[in-house]
């Protein structure tokens, strides 16, 4: 009789989980296939993982239409949020994984590192990123973050014959695990203060009652900020970024700067800007200081670098500062601007890293300024593409970078964060100088003697073309993307579809 009782279980809307299933199951399937058939050709593995990402993107488009009809909802007892925000980020993260896979294909052949692992780990990291974007519960979000991080730790140590790569993996791992514990401690304290780890529940508690003894809550938010700003590489928790970017394989760096950053900001936007929106006065000052430091130190340190990849690592730190402006606006406008920035930056940075993958040559170690000298003459097409990416990163009008920077600064001004917006403009000027320095080296200096001939493999060419198209298209017609970003807001709704 006891056995006949129904065990209550939450309803699961499998459609919402489709993007995660495509990437996660896709990765595991290909891993299983290699254990059955040892010598899967590289092109098959690459096409498989690009197809898995395409599946995630197509299901996101289907979900977007469904979202347009039914509005936001959440599933699995409110643990997974289905809103425009998570669907939009699905497209960003899946594109980042696909581009990194395409870059990795010729890279693995050149470095003689054939194997399925890099593609599998990229897919699994992407799955973790998607869970972070969808997670409506702090514990679910934490599991997504760990899935993402652990895959990326291994990815950075992936190049077996480069000691720099393993050193990068080790440094990233120790610091990453260290920062994750802070994040988790923050989650525990927030749980103690509000009695739940569910963001819908936390928001309801904050909306309905004033927490008198808010020491636990504020301590929890502070620790959460430490953990999250580490993941996105914001000052003062940025020191790992240049080392890891320099040491890790270049296609992996492309994913770290695009996908991992997008997932980290997804969490910041969902947790800070939305869940803790009612107590915005408590956490915005901290993010203001972090954003200002990130903007200035990122741009200033980039100038003095002699290694192009390190320089771009510092530039990605200063870009994180810009996106933080969207976070601290804590408004719908700020979220939309940050999403626009994340989308365009994902393509920008993948294109930049694609160029570096070609230029670095065998060994993946030469990132000195000599390696890019006279690139405009050695390979005009590549030089032209790189020029577009650098213009966009500097924020020159008619590129997506300009619209993105303008959007976040306008959002910060809109919510009265004037001084940080001023710092951002100064940082943009300093940044322009550093991109100009790379451009001068590329177009005004002669190539070094016996510079090897550059060949652009077809898959890298695909990434370059799509990055250039996205950068120019959304630079001239930002409305095409901005319309989606405006609708892609975080909705903490408890209702099931």
């Amino acid at each position, binding site marked *: 009789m006891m056995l006949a009782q129904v065990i209550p279980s939450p309803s699961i809307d499998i459609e919402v989980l489709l993007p995660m299933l495509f990437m996660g199951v896709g990765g595991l399937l290909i891993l299983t296939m290699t254990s059955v058939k040892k010598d899967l050709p590289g092109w098959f593995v690459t096409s498989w993982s690009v197809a898995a990402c395409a599946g995630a993107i197509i299901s996101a488009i289907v979900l977007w239409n469904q979202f347009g009809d039914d509005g936001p909802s959440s599933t699995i007892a409110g643990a997974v949020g289905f809103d425009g925000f998570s669907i939009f980020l699905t497209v960003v993260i899946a594109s980042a994984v696909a581009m990194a896979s395409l870059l990795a294909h010729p890279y693995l052949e050149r470095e003689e590192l054939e194997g399925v692992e890099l593609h599998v780990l990229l897919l699994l990291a992407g799955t973790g990123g998607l869970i972070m974007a969808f997670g409506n519960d702090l*514990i679910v979000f*934490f*599991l997504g973050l*760990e899935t993402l991080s*652990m895959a990326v*730790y*291994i990815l950075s*140590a992936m190049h*077996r014959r480069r*000691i*720099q790569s*393993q*050193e*990068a*993996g*080790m*440094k990233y*791992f*120790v610091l990453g*695990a*260290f920062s*994750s*514990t802070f994040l*988790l*401690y923050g*989650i*525990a*304290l927030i*749980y*103690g203060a509000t*009695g*739940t*780890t569910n963001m819908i529940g936390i928001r309801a508690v904050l909306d309905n009652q004033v927490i008198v003894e808010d020491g636990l809550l504020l301590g929890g938010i502070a620790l959460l900020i430490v953990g999250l700003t580490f993941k996105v590489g914001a000052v003062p928790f940025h020191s790992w970024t*240049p*080392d890891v970017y*320099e*040491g890790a394989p270049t296609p992996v760096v492309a994913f770290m700067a695009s996908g991992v950053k997008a997932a980290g900001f997804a969490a910041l936007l969902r947790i800070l800007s939305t869940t803790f929106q009612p107590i915005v006065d408590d956490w915005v000052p901290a993010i203001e200081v972090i954003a200002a430091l990130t903007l200035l130190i990122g741009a200033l340190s980039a100038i003095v*670098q*002699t*290694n192009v990849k*390190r320089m771009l690592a510092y530039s990605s730190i200063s870009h994180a500062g810009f996106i933080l402006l969207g976070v601290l606006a804590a408004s719908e406008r700020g979220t939309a601007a940050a999403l626009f920035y994340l989308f365009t930056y994902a393509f920008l940075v993948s294109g930049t890293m694609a160029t570096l993958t070609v230029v670095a040559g065998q060994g993946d170690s030469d990132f000195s300024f000599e390696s890019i000298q006279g690139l405009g003459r050695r390979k005009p097409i590549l030089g032209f593409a790189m020029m577009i990416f650098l213009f966009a990163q500097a924020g020159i009008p008619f590129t997506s970078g300009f619209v993105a920077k303008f959007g976040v600064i306008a959002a910060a001004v809109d919510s009265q964060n004037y001084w940080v917006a001023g710092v951002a403009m100064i940082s943009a000027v300093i940044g322009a100088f550093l991109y100009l320095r790379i451009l001068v080296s590329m177009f005004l200096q002669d190539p070094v003697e016996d510079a090897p001939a550059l060949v652009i493999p077809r898959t890298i060419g695909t990434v370059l073309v799509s990055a250039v198209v996205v950068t120019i298209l959304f630079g001239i017609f930002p409305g095409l993307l901005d319309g989606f970003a405006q609708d892609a807001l975080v909705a903490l709704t408890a209702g099931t579809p």
Partner: protein
Amino acid sequence: MLTPTYYLVLSALVFSIGAFGVLVRRNPLIMFMCVELMLNAVNLTFIGLAWGLNDIGGQVSVFFVMVVAAAEVVVGLAIVVAIMRRRDGATADDLSVLRG
């Protein structure tokens, strides 16, 4: 007469000891152990708070944290082994090719 507060204070202490260990020790294995210490301090916090709130959610979270901690050790040791194969010492000070 143990209230959850005692456990919160204890876990804060254990967490600080772990954090201090990660910062001052140079042997990666000891650093991993310190990270584990920090994770377990968080577990203690979760249990203390769950008891205080009379809520099962915090206790369930502990299981997830344990899984994460185990997976983290596997990844960390794999990276150490990969480095050890190439060179004899693997203290944090040996890893200094990347700087600037």
